[in-house]
């Protein structure tokens, strides 16, 4: 590959220990992220999609070093993020920033908007002190706010504007990687479009790289260049946006796609839908084999015994399913 890889994650595992049941009870772990590999190209948007409990947010937080990593390597440019500690880690943080889901709870209600955006620059010593004021004003303009709104407190802004402050704050330290953790799911539909358009414009203008976490397939399809589908801590399928959506291979991807209510009447009928039964199983000490097997309509003996590896089917399109043939034919219903 000749393209620049900005972030590379290898065999990332994040396990959380559970409380023991009694003094002699067995120690169990929540396998939140269990062996994830990602490579994100500079200037592109990489999406992780999945249901709640799939480990998509934990993956993002692990990249930000906001949760303890059990094992694996994370490389951002020249930094080995998984090995940095203390002051070194703090200095590396200016290269990666995060936009949170909920613009209501992620801004300090007692701090003025301008100070919120300025704080990362002061903390991480970005640029000259004298220039910071101008820089904050410029950031406000970039995200579509007026510079004079710096003096206001978060409650004086609407949800969409608050998310714009969140975006400005994330951009303040001039990061290479911006992690967007469900940046639009707490917003009203009309406001979502404003923020999505803003994120795309900023990417074009500033050459940002996004790691975009979402459960909304429509949004992911629109904004991401490459997408990984996660289920219970593992990537089950990965591909570029065209290939993944035109030829979904994994039964879970297929089920996710068929679950989305569609506004296009023509699309609704021709979809060969898979309906899943029940809820995702518990990620505490998951059983061997494919984790989707208990809900998969095609599952066979092999699926409950052996964990399927994530293997390439064609250029850049990977899938972890025993039943997908090597030339990329997904499992079919018998009828």
């Amino acid at each position: 590959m000749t393209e620049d890889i900005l972030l590379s994650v290898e065999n990332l595992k994040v396990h959380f220990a559970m409380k023991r049941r009694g003094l002699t009870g067995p120690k169990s772990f929540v396998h939140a992220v269990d062996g994830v590999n990602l490579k994100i190209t500079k200037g592109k948007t990489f999406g992780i999609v999945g249901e709640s409990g799939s480990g998509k947010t934990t993956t993002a937080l692990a990249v930000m070093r906001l949760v303890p990593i059990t094992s694996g390597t994370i490389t951002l440019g020249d930094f080995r993020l998984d090995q940095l500690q203390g002051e070194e880690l703090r200095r590396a943080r200016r290269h990666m920033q995060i936009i949170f889901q909920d613009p209501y709870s992620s801004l300090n209600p007692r701090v003025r908007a301008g100070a919120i955006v300025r704080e990362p620059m002061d903390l991480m010593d970005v640029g000259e002190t004298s220039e910071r004021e101008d820089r904050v004003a410029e950031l406000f303009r970039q995200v579509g706010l007026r510079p004079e709104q710096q003096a206001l407190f978060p409650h004086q802004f609407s949800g969409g504007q608050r998310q714009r402050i969140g975006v400005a704050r994330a951009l303040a330290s001039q990061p290479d990687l911006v992690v967007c953790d469900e940046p639009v799911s707490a917003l009203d539909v009309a406001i979502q479009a404003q923020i999505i358009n803003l994120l795309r414009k900023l990417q074009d203008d500033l050459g940002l790289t996004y790691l975009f976490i979402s459960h909304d397939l429509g949004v992911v399809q629109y904004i991401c260049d490459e997408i990984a589908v996660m289920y219970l801590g593992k990537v089950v399928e990965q591909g570029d946006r065209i290939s993944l959506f035109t030829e979904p291979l994994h039964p879970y991807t297929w089920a996710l796609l068929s679950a989305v209510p569609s506004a296009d009447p023509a699309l609704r009928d021709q979809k060969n839908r898979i309906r899943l039964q029940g809820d995702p199983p518990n990620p505490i000490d998951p059983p061997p084999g494919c984790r989707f097997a208990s809900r998969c309509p095609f599952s066979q003996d092999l699926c409950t015994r052996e964990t399927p590896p994530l293997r390439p089917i064609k250029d850049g399109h990977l899938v972890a399913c025993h039943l997908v043939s090597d030339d990329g034919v997904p499992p079919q219903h018998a009828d």
Partner: protein
Amino acid sequence: MVEPLLEIKDLRVEFDTRDGVATVIDGLDISLYPGEILGIVGESGCGKSMTALSVMRLVPVPPGRIAKGTIRLQGEDLLQASEKRMREVRGNAISMIFQEPMTSLNPVFSVGDQIAETILLHEGVGKRVAWQRAVEMLDAVGIPAPEIRAREYPHQMSGGMRQRVMIAMALACQPRVLIADEPTTALDVTVQAQIFDLLKDLQEKTGAVIMLITHDMGAIAEMAQRVVVMYAGRKVEDGPVDEILTNPKHPYTAGLIGCVPHLSVNPTEERLPLTDIPGVVPPLTRLGKGCPFAPRCVKALDKCGWEMPPQSVVGEDHRASCWLIENDEI
């Protein structure tokens, strides 16, 4: 001509606020016909949930009040009914599924008890019969091992399960009208699909009329036959779903459809910017005389700012309120 089962006419709901009187619903007409699913869509603050609460007569008074209008359930005006009569209607003839299954279930009673309570209140049956019916309802909404699950408490269940319990409770007395206020917002897509299938299925079996409140045009397309688009407490457009999706007349409806990236089975390389509706829903205390959408409307005329557009018929069973239609500009 089929008689509507539920008919809302010229409804006006006001709230006293520190900034003066907010008109949260104004001049709203909605009819629900037997056997249909009617969708109501709009952003937050457009009066969707308040419409539902008005039908249930659950608008908090004070600070709110229903200032004007009628809501007729098979001819009976619910706004004139006594509180005693309303208690008979709620949960019986009309019932409601709320947005948040976690906060609308009582944490200290088992789910079976909560469903049985509705049946006990409305049907005059004994405790054992009511419990039996509750278990049957849990079975009907697809909860496995209903006898055991009925004894469990809400915290022992997942979000999807809780929403199924809510649905079981709402349908326990075979209501004629079921109001579903954003029934799937807190749920994952695969679970949402299950709940939608369940609602459609139960609707076919029981023949109840469903009023589905949502902000998701996709959900409307999937579920409803007719849709009402609301903005700032007013109906701006209504008509058959397929017609509105392919041929929206009001700029707000067009904006609502265009602002969401719709999932496509064959995406293209090119990605056009999403239509955005600039600004936010205005504070309802400060609505002027004109079209409430005018300040955010890219096509607004001078006239829109000071005069309310009348409702025009733009197609079969399709109406919209916009000056552009009056002026033949759409």
